[in-house]
C-alpha cells in the first residue's frame, strides 16, 4: 500500500500528470451535466452518432496533417449536431435512421481515409486510440489542456445559466413553448453543448466510449434521487469521482485510461442500483 502511495506521489510531481487529472475531472464534470437531459429527451442516439462523426473528422484532420486537430473536429461536430437535430425534428425523415446512416458512414469514411493516407507506421494503434482513447491522456499537449479547460468552464457556465430553461424544455416542451420559452433555441443550445462535450471527451475516453461517460452518471443518480437538482448534482459528483479513481488506477496499473474510467463507472452504477433498491429512493 505504502508503495502505491509513493509511486502515486512520484507521478503527481510531474506537471503533465497533474494536468491530466485536472482535464479528466473537468471533462467528467461536463459530460455528466447534460446526461439526464440527453437520456430523457432520447437525444442519446444523437450523442452516439456525433461521436462517430467526430471520429471521421479526426481522420480528416490527421490526413490533412494538422498539428492541432481540435478546432476542425469541433467545427465539424457542432455543424453535424445542428443538422442532426434538424432532421430529428422533421417528421418526414426518420430521425434515427438518418443518425445511423451518418454515424456509420462517418466511421467507415474515417477509417478508409486513415488507411489510404496515413503516414503512420502504427495504423491500427492510431485507430484504436481514436476509438478507445489514447493509452494515456498523459500525452496531451499543453495547448490541448488549455482548450479543454476553457471549453469545460464555458460548458459548465452555460449549463448553470440555462439550468431552469433546460429543465422546462426537458420536462414538457409544449408547455415551455406555449409560455413563450424558445424551445427550438434551447434544443439547439443543448445540441451544440453535446457536440463540444463529445469533442472534449474524445481525448479522455475515445469516441466509442463517450456515451458511457454521458449516460452512466445520469442513470446511476436516477436510481437514488428523484428530483432534477439532486440528480444533476449527484451525477456530477459521481462522474468526477469515477474519473478521478479511473485515472489514478490507470496510472498505477498502467491500464488504458478510457476503459478504466468506464469500468469504474459500471461498478459505481451497480452500487447505486443496490442503494436505490434498498432505500426505495430518497426524496431529498
Amino acid at each position, binding site marked *: 500500500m505504502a508503495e502505491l502511495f509513493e509511486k502515486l506521489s512520484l507521478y503527481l510531481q510531474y506537471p503533465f500528470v497533474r494536468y491530466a487529472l485536472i482535464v479528466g475531472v473537468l471533462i467528467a464534470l461536463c459530460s455528466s451535466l447534460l446526461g439526464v437531459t440527453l437520456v430523457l429527451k432520447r437525444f442519446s442516439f444523437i450523442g452516439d452518432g456525433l461521436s462517430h462523426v467526430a471520429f471521421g473528422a479526426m481522420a480528416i484532420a490527421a490526413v490533412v496533417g494538422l498539428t492541432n486537430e481540435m478546432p476542425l473536429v469541433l467545427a465539424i461536430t457542432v455543424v453535424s449536431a445542428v443538422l442532426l437535430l434538424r432532421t430529428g425534428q422533421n417528421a418526414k425523415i426518420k430521425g434515427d435512421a438518418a443518425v445511423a446512416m451518418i454515424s456509420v458512414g462517418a466511421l467507415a469514411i474515417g477509417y478508409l481515409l486513415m488507411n489510404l493516407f496515413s503516414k503512420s507506421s502504427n495504423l491500427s494503434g492510431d485507430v484504436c486510440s481514436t476509438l478507445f482513447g489514447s493509452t494515456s491522456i498523459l500525452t496531451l499537449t499543453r495547448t490541448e489542456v488549455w482548450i479543454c479547460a476553457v471549453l469545460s468552464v464555458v460548458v459548465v457556465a452555460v449549463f448553470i445559466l440555462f439550468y431552469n430553461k433546460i429543465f422546462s424544455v426537458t420536462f414538457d416542451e409544449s408547455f415551455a*413553448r406555449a*409560455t413563450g420559452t424558445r424551445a427550438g433555441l434551447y434544443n439547439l443550445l443543448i445540441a451544440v453543448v453535446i457536440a463540444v462535450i463529445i469533442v472534449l471527451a474524445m481525448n479522455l475516453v475515445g469516441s466509442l466510449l463517450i456515451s458511457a461517460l454521458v449516460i452512466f452518471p445520469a442513470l446511476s443518480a436516477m436510481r437514488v434521487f*428523484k428530483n432534477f437538482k439532486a440528480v444533476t448534482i449527484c451525477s456530477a459528483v459521481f462522474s468526477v469521482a469515477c474519473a478521478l479513481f479511473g485515472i489514478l488506477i490507470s496510472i498505477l496499473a498502467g491500464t488504458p485510461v478510457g476503459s478504466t474510467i468506464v469500468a469504474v463507472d459500471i461498478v459505481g452504477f451497480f452500487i447505486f442500483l443496490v442503494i436505490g433498491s434498498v432505500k426505495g429512493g430518497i426524496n431529498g
Partner: protein
Amino acid sequence: MALLTCQDLSLGYDGHEIVHGLNFEINSGDYLCIVGENGSGKSTLMKTILGLQTPTSGKILTGDGLKPNEIGYLPQQTVVQKDFPASVWEIVLSGCGNRTGLRPFYSKTEKQIAKDNIEKMGLTPLIKRCYRELSGGQQQRVLLARALCATQKMLLLDEPVSGLDPKVTTEMYELIEQLNNNDGITVIMISHDIESAVKYADRILHIGSEIFFGTKDEYVKSTSARAFLKGGEENG
C-alpha cells in the same frame, strides 16, 4: 375589446384542414367549454390558440392586455417521459418560466407565487415528492398549479378530468370554478363530460360537422347538442 377573438379561423396539419370558419369571442371572466367528438379538432384548436402551431387561415387576436405567453395550459397528455426525476416544487416553479425573461434564476416573488399556488391546490404536504409517484389526480393538480404560475388571466385546460374518479372529478371542477369565480380567471376547457360542461360553463363551443358557439341555454336547445346529448345518454 374581447380577451381573445378568433376570426374565420381554420385549423389543420400540413395544409390538411380539420376545422373551418371558427368565429368566436371570449371576454374576461368567461367560462367556455369546448365539446365535440374524438378527433374533431378540439386539442388542435387549443394548440393553435397557444401558438404551438399556426392556423391554416384566419386570425387569433388577444386583447385586454393579454400577452400570448400569459396563458396557462394543462395539456391533454403530458408527454412527460415516464422516469423523469422531478419534484412537485420544481415542476410548479417551472410555470414561472415566462416571467423571468433573460434572467437565469427565479426571484423571491416567483418562488412565492409557486408556493401560493401549491397551497391553493392543496399540495403543500407533497411539495418534495417525486411527480411520477403521485396519483393521477395529484398529478393533474400539480400541472394545474404550474399553469396558474404562468397566468393570472386565462387557463386552457384540455380534458382536465379524464381518468379521474367521480369524487376527484367533482373536486377538480369545483377547484376550477373557484378559480373562475374568486380569482376572475378566464377558463377555456375541453371536456367530454357534457353534463358538467353544461353545469359549470357559461358558454359552449361545439366543434364538429356543425359548429355551434353560444351560451349554454342556447346550446341545450340547439340541434348540434340534441344529437350529442342523446348519444351521451345512451352511452352512459
